[in-house]
């Protein structure tokens, strides 16, 4: 738990056990949640050890977004009181049955009451004058309040931040406030210097050794947790796991610093990685049994005498071969699993390596196929849309990605062919081209007015839908049928429906009922290509800058 934080933790424990400063600020820009766990673990350890009496309250500034919540959580934790449902979830109210969460003043009284009850645990409060005559003096007790994610305090409770930083003077108890955050105190502190400077403890990012040690510790040690017969987590494979983890770190560390994320990827890759070795082992077991059967002339071996062939850790060159084979797989896993586009179980199931990989001679070793998991659900929804909706989505994709000026060139047809297609004489390139032209694909979809999309839809229908239409002899003028089609109410209502299912995004305000609200396309290139294939529209020819 505390790997990599040993220095800071020893610093904190020595401070707290001797003379804790009233206000400590721990700044960990890299992994504050791990630092918080380490601090909590160390406080627990201090509590177990008997030389000083310490009670601590570890609260999260996100879940305590109200001062009242903060006071309640802190006091309940310091008094070691658990609100119970049957007693009406009452908070700790001290021997005098007061409410301590009304205001800061109440909180201070609550702290004093907690300290007093701490000193005389049988529940009697001695008056202040008699405090010194107790066997337990003030110097022996410590009340520690640890607030994680302290940067939230600035937004939710900025007016009590100053009293919180001076808690010891105000309440006249032995309380220490520890704030832990990935933002430095400079950004959180109240202006005008009203809060005293804290005791700064800065924690740097975890070193490689620390991360590797954390990952190695996660290899399961107990045989009970394993599925019987499954040797994926056999203790003999532990050194291999260490090597595996260090290779994984080498591949992923430019992108990931959090050890938990690395552990997630490692957990998803390990069963696949270890599979060839286990296959090899099973092969050896089978061979051994075959050999024994031949020895005994076909007599079946007795059940009780099954020889246990040990699982041997692989040799160095086997390890190197495996690593080389699996490196592209790890990179692909990083791409998919780190942004959680898919999850570890699904990935592991989809990417089982071919059996008996190690028995294939090295020269003929193929690379392991990588199955990227695609989002099956959204594809199914797109396929099941009605035909007009598919046309609308393709038209909106074109509208979002083609600049408006190119419409005439792409879709204009008829008499003015020559007029629209002329581009003018070649212009001289200006000596300093100021702006870098970023391709439209990287800029994201553009907003388009509905009129433009309906016009593009008309062109698409006119050119691609003619074969699928029922005979309609009443429309004699070419193009009339399509015009009727695009002026139906269902086209507009379909657009509303698609924007409700977030396949189109409406960018103009919703309340206004105007002729041409603006939209943006909400599907990506691959989805659009799939739809275009469904309706037999050549999407590539219609995009201004095709991929």
């Amino acid at each position, binding site marked *: 738990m505390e790997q990599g934080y040993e220095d800071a933790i020893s610093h904190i424990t020595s401070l707290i056990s001797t003379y804790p400063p009233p206000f400590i600020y721990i700044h960990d820009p890299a992994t504050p949640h791990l630092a918080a766990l380490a601090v909590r673990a160390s406080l627990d350890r201090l509590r177990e050890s008997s030389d000083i009496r310490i009670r601590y309250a570890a609260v999260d500034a996100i879940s305590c977004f109200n001062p009242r919540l903060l006071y309640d959580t802190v006091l309940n934790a310091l008094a070691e009181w658990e609100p119970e449902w049957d007693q009406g979830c009452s908070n700790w109210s001290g021997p005098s049955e007061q409410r301590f969460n009304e205001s800061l003043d109440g909180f201070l009284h609550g702290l004093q009451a907690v300290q007093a009850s701490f000193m005389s645990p049988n529940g009697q409060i001695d008056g202040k004058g008699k405090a010194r005559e107790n066997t337990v003096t003030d110097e022996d007790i410590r009340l520690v309040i640890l607030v994680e994610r302290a940067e939230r305090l600035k937004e939710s409770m900025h007016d009590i931040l100053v009293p919180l930083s001076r808690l010891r003077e105000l309440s006249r108890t032995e309380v220490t406030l520890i704030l832990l955050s990935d933002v430095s105190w400079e950004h959180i502190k109240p202006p005008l210097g009203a809060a005293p400077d804290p005791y700064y403890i800065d924690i740097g990012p975890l070193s490689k050794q620390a991360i590797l040690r954390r990952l190695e510790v996660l290899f399961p040690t107990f045989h009970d947790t394993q599925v019987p017969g499954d040797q994926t987590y056999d203790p003999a494979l532990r050194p291999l796991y260490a090597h595996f983890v260090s290779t994984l770190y080498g591949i992923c560390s430019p992108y990931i610093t959090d050890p938990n994320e690395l552990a997630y990827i490692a957990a998803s890759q390990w069963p696949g990685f270890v599979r060839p070795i286990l296959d090899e082992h099973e092969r050896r077991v089978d061979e051994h049994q075959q050999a024994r059967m031949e020895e005994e002339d076909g007599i079946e071996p007795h059940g009780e005498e099954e020889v246990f062939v040990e699982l041997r850790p692989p040799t160095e060159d086997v390890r190197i071969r495996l690593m080389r084979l699996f490196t592209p797989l790890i990179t692909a896993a990083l791409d998919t699993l780190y942004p959680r586009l898919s999850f570890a179980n699904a990935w592991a199931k989809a990417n089982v390596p071919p059996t008996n990989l190690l028995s294939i001679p090295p020269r003929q070793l193929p690379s392991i196929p990588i199955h990227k998991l695609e989002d099956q659900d959204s594809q199914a929804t797109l396929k099941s849309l009605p035909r007009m909706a598919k046309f609308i989505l393709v038209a909106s994709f074109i509208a979002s990605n083609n600049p408006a000026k190119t419409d*005439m060139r792409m*879709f204009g047809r008829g008499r003015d062919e020559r007029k629209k297609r002329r581009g003018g004489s070649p212009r001289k390139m200006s000596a300093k081209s100021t702006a870098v032209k970023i391709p439209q694909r990287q800029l994201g979809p553009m907003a388009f007015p509905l009129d433009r999309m309906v016009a593009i839809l008309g062109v698409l229908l006119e050119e691609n839908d003619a074969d699928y239409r029922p005979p309609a002899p009443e429309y004699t003028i*070419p*193009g009339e049928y399509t015009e009727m089609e695009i002026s139906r109410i269902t086209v507009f209502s379909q*657009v509303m429906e698609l924007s409700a299912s977030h396949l189109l995004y409406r960018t103009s305000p919703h309340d206004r009922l105007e002729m041409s609200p603006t939209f943006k396309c909400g599907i990506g290139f691959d989805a659009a290509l799939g739809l275009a294939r469904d309706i037999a529209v050549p999407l590539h020819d219609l995009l201004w800058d095709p991929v």
Partner: protein
Amino acid sequence: MTLPTKSQTHTFAHTAFDAYFALNHKPSRTSNNVFSNLLTPLTTKEYSTSLASSQNLRSSQVPWLGSSSRNQLFPRLLFELDQGFNLLFYGAGSKRDILNTLATCLNEEDNDVIVVNAFNPSFTVKDLLASVENFFDTQSCPMTTGSGIEGQTRRILKLFDSPDTDLDLFLVIHNIDAPSMRNIRAKSALMALASHSRIHILASVDNIAFADLWSLSEIFNRKPTCFSSASISASTITPSPGYAWLFHDLTTLAPYDFETAYADRSSISGASQATKSSRARQDIPVAGASATMSTMTEDAARHILLSVTQKAKKLFVLLGTKQLEAIGDLEPSKIDAKAIAFDYSMLFNAARDDFVATNDTALRALMGEFKDHGLMVSMMQATTGAEAVWIPMRKEGLVKIVDDVRKEFEGM
């Protein structure tokens, strides 16, 4: 779309989308020659006289005006209502008369009908629900309290859900596309009512873009059939919320006299609901808004000026002159409140010099009267944060009034 002549047709005819691309190919430039700068708007008297003498009103020939065609149409509509659809009427012209006739027709057959004029700017969905509640006396319904829109809707639905009653409600909503009915809460309340099999809605729409109000699933859903109480539980169709609209073209080409009765006839920006007169009367409008200049007519201004004191008239003349000086050379299209508003402190100095007001309180008292009537509007300037005042009138009207009042002073 223009039909091309034989010589011009190549392979394609010029369809609407071709026209769109052709028109948007080049950027269009709008002219600064605005119609509203050339003419003053009609006064109410002029409008009503010209309307009375107009010939065109009786000459339009559309169906649904004669009773024979109505006799053919109405049974069909009633049958469709019976089968569990709601009816939506579109088409140019006021559909109010014919819908009201339909409503009376329904009422004669012993049905409960509620007619709602949603084009009234002060109408809200709450009024509709309150009138339904009062009609059926839903107070006796247990278990549903709450006076908000959701509470009222729930009560009404609970009343209609109870299997013993055979109540049938016909809601005739004129202009279901009114702004007060477009917000989400109103829409969801209406949808809840419309999905109920005992409540039938007949609505009319006049906005061109009415198709953008509802999504496809809302238009095409079907109400759960509710002919007997047994079929409620046996219904296999899961009811999805929505209006089961059937669209009917009810073009009448009748003038929208009744619907636009609430609009300000003399405003150039039109009778649309967007220029509500209540909004124009705001004391401190947003500094960036270019409020319409014509919110105050000449007659109204004269009327107000008749009833104020001498000092107030002097103040009005003062501000009017200063404002006209500021307008003086500007083009009419560029005039807006920001450009011509007169700084309050400068006005105070000028008023003091002219012996109109001795201190700030007196000046504010005088201005307060004008502000109440809407003849003077004060606003916060965005740049300096100081208060500025201006008179919301058109230039010609202001010129005339200021001259008249000044003549009055000189004549005295």
